[in-house]
């Protein structure tokens, strides 16, 4: 637990309105370095609006964002990336037709100077990609293998490795496990664990309580655009989280018949 | 099913025939290439192709027809260069755009290929590029003659439907017609495009906007056929003075029905046929006519349509 030092990201009373629709209505979250902060919520709870606000895609209508203690204004995702906030989107992490190494360095291409001309340093890119993939436990046929041939979990892993390699201090994962099978999910969760141990703050968005419980240090539940509070690991049971996500007790009646599988 | 098989077999034959024909004919006789500027869609050139084939057959020489598929003159220049590279005995070509085509034609002449200019261009231009002769209808003079004829019939204003606005030589016909009438061309010439229904609607729109138009001049079947339909639909058929360049099935019929007063026949048959004959005799016996040949204009009216009707679209 990392409560001993200052939060790396603090979001205070964030509101986001789209015309007459209030997507976020006063959300407060603190994220500490080295923790995995799970953000739970049902569909439509405002999870994706929230992470887009944190990653600079949206500007909050009201409220403040502090990054490393200083107020932060992100004009676009590039600012957030430059500051060290990286986001891995569920199905938009990678470009299937491009090679792993081109994907890995997309937006951060290494350059090699030949006289006045700056060229893409493929040699460097290929070497780094192979190294990083090996560290993450993915064996590539070669750095020019297309991402399209990787499994969903491997793609998420490549995207996470990429963010870490380029110095992310905060890593936002948007439902990284929602479309994956059991074994691939386990791989991704293991990757999250590795990343956390490097001192990087992970914001893990999911609506699957079991996945959250597996790696989360703290849990924040979003419902209808507001936070229903943050709980420490060990202070809350999966059932309680599940109920909070559903916004009340109505699932309790179903719980018995579903046998706790939801 | 059998008819499908037949069709398939025919298609295969047709596809293979040119290859075979070329293989055989290359061995004997002179080889002449006719290069036109007409896009694939221009049906008028069918007569040229038939006449060319007939001349080839009668003279015992190999003939080929080439054209730029979209009618792009720059592509035509490449085709002439290509024809030159293939080393024929002669090239018969139109001179649709002197600036573009004069270079390639001159190069053909200089590399020893005899050239005859047909259809488009002028006798002067033909001489300038070093061609043996020009076979065709001087466009301006043909238009002028038509204009003078219309003036005698009491026409004072007209609409010229130009479907080949990009070919300045053809536009000369409209200019000549206006001069023959003694009026200013002004806005009388419209760019009709080549699509039949577009032409029809543009003609209708023009006649609506200018109800006092005395006469219509079309520059070929492409513009004449839809214009006939336009006049039938607005009831002016037979009423308005209607002359056209060139012939085709529908034009011949319209002349018989009195919708069209006269058609100017530039006799494309001769434009393709004569150059082959001239070139062959020149190459075999060294004889060459001492002048250019005017293949037209011939005015075709309701009198004496029989032969025209019989061979319209084929040789006429």
């Amino acid at each position, binding site marked *: 637990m990392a409560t001993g030092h200052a939060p790396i990201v603090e979001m205070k009373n964030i509101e986001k309105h789209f015309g007459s629709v209030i997507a976020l209505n006063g959300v407060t979250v603190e994220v500490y370095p080295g923790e995995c902060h799970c953000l739970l919520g049902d569909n439509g709870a405002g999870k994706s609006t929230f992470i887009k606000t944190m990653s600079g895609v949206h500007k909050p209508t009201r409220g403040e964002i502090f990054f490393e203690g200083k107020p932060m204004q992100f004009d676009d995702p590039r600012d957030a990336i430059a500051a060290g906030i990286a986001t891995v989107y569920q199905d938009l992490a990678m*470009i299937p037709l491009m090679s792993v190494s081109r994907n890995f360095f997309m*937006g951060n291409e290494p350059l090699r100077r030949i006289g006045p001309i700056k060229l893409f340093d493929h040699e460097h890119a290929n070497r780094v990609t192979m190294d990083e993939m090996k560290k993450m436990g993915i064996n590539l046929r070669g750095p020019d293998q297309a991402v399209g041939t990787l499994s969903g979990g*491997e793609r998420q892993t490549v995207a996470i490795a990429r963010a870490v390699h380029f110095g992310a201090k905060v890593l936002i994962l948007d439902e990284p496990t929602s479309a994956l099978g059991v074994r691939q999910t386990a791989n991704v969760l293991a990757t999250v664990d590795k990343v956390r141990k490097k001192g990087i703050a992970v914001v893990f968005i999911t609506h699957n309580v079991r996945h959250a419980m597996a790696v989360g240090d703290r849990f924040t539940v979003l419902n209808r655009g507001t936070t229903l509070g943050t709980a420490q690991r060990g202070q809350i049971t999966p059932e309680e989280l599940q109920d909070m996500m559903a916004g009340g007790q109505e699932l309790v009646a179903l719980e018995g018949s579903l046998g706790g599988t939801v | 099913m059998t008819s499908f098989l037949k069709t398939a077999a025919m298609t295969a034959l047709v596809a293979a025939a*040119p290859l075979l024909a070329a293989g055989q004919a290359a061995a004997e006789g002179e080889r002449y290439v006719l290069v036109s500027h007409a896009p694939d869609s221009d049906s008028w050139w069918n007569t040229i192709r038939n006449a060319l084939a007939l001349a080839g057959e009668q003279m015992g020489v190999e003939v080929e027809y080439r054209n730029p598929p979209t009618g*792009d003159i720059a592509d035509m220049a490449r085709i002439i260069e290509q024809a030159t590279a*293939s080393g024929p005995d002669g090239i018969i070509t139109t001179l649709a755009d002197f*600036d573009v085509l004069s270079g390639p034609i001159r190069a053909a002449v*200089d*590399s020893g290929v005899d050239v005859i200019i047909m259809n488009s261009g002028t006798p002067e231009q033909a001489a300038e590029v070093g061609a043996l002769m020009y076979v065709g209808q001087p466009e301006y003079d043909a238009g002028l003659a038509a204009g003078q004829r219309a003036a005698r019939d009491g026409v004072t204003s007209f609409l010229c439907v130009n479907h080949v606005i990009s070919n300045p030589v053809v536009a000369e016909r409209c200019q000549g017609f206006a001069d023959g009438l003694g009026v200013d061309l002004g806005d009388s010439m419209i760019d009709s495009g080549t699509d039949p229904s577009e032409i029809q609607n543009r003609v209708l729109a023009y006649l609506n906007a200018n109800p006092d138009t005395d006469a219509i001049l079309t520059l070929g079947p492409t513009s004449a056929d839809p214009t006939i339909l336009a006049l039938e639909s607005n009831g002016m058929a037979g009423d308005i003075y209607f002359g056209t360049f060139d012939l085709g099935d529908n034009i011949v019929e319209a002349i018989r029905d009195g919708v069209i007063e006269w058609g100017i026949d530039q006799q494309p048959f001769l434009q393709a046929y004569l150059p082959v004959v001239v070139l062959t005799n020149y190459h075999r016996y060294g004889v060459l006519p001492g002048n250019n040949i005017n293949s037209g204009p011939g005015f075709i009216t309701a009198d004496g349509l029989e032969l025209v009707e019989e061979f319209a679209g084929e040789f006429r």
Partner: protein
Amino acid sequence: MSDTATGDERVKEMSGFRKALIRPELGGIVGTVAVFTFFLLFAADSGMFNAQGIMNWSTVSAQFMIIAVGACMLMIAGEFDLSVGSMIGFAGMSIAIFSVTLGWPVWIAILTTFALCISIGALNGYIVIKTGLPSFIVTLAALFILRGFTIFFPQTIERRTIIGGIDDAAEGDWLAPFFGGEIGQPIFVWLADLGLIDVFERGNRAGEPVIDGIPMLIVWAIALVIFGHIVLTRTRFGNWIFAAGGDAQAARYVGVPVNRVKILMFMFTAFCATVFATCQVMEFGSAGADRGVLKEFEAIIAVVIGGALLTGGYGSVVGAALGALIFGVVQQGLFFAGVESSLFRVFLGVILLFAVILNTYIRRIITGER
């Protein structure tokens, strides 16, 4: 985690053949070999492979290459430009009006035309980006607008649709030879002296070689192919082009300036079209309102034959150049082989169909779709 590190035993090693298949140039290489074999068999003694014949299909192929390079990079960036053909007509007419009608020095006319056309390309791109409309529709509109102006301006100003006399205007101009000139004349004189190429038999050029130099058109084509290939495969910007076409949203999320990339590619396509037009106008000395009709499709066909995917994100400039070569050689070669010219379109359709089917198959291999 460590169990996946050993690899998935169900993924078979890719055979060398399949590995070669996913190179985008492969189709182009195979096609080029096939096409040349075919014509060497059927048209070897027809003049297709003498100096004039080679120059003929090289020039035609070079024309296709120039516009194919632009179309290829734009297609990889995920967009189309259907206004290429109209742009060729428009650019040529623009040079003609500036230099002949308005009497400006030719180099100013050329530079102004480049600026004008590249701006129009940028506008195309800007509209596509800002409206989110498919580039197909936006550039289709540009196709008509540009063609309309190309007919309207000369007709209004000069009362004709072909403006000539540019070669006279270009006499002594410093820039015009970069488009209409030729290089390497001494080599051809030397070759003619050796008797390797024919000389003119008569006329005032008698004794000169039938090919007097390599047209700048071919030089431009080669230069653009090399430039495009390096940019695409060896630079950061090239990676952005692939990314923008592969998945624009994913690229944006990692900070690739997708909008800028796409607009720049529209501008580059317009640049290529203008190079084509300028070379043509300087060679022939006149501009016509119907120049370049359907060239946009010819460019796209060359690019697709060259292995690029219509959906973007995959392709190669070298492939597109080979596609252009195949296109040019087939178009001109069918004549030399004595095939009826109307069948050219049949051949073209068949080649295109094969290319697209092959490309779809390749894409399945790359992305592992089943």
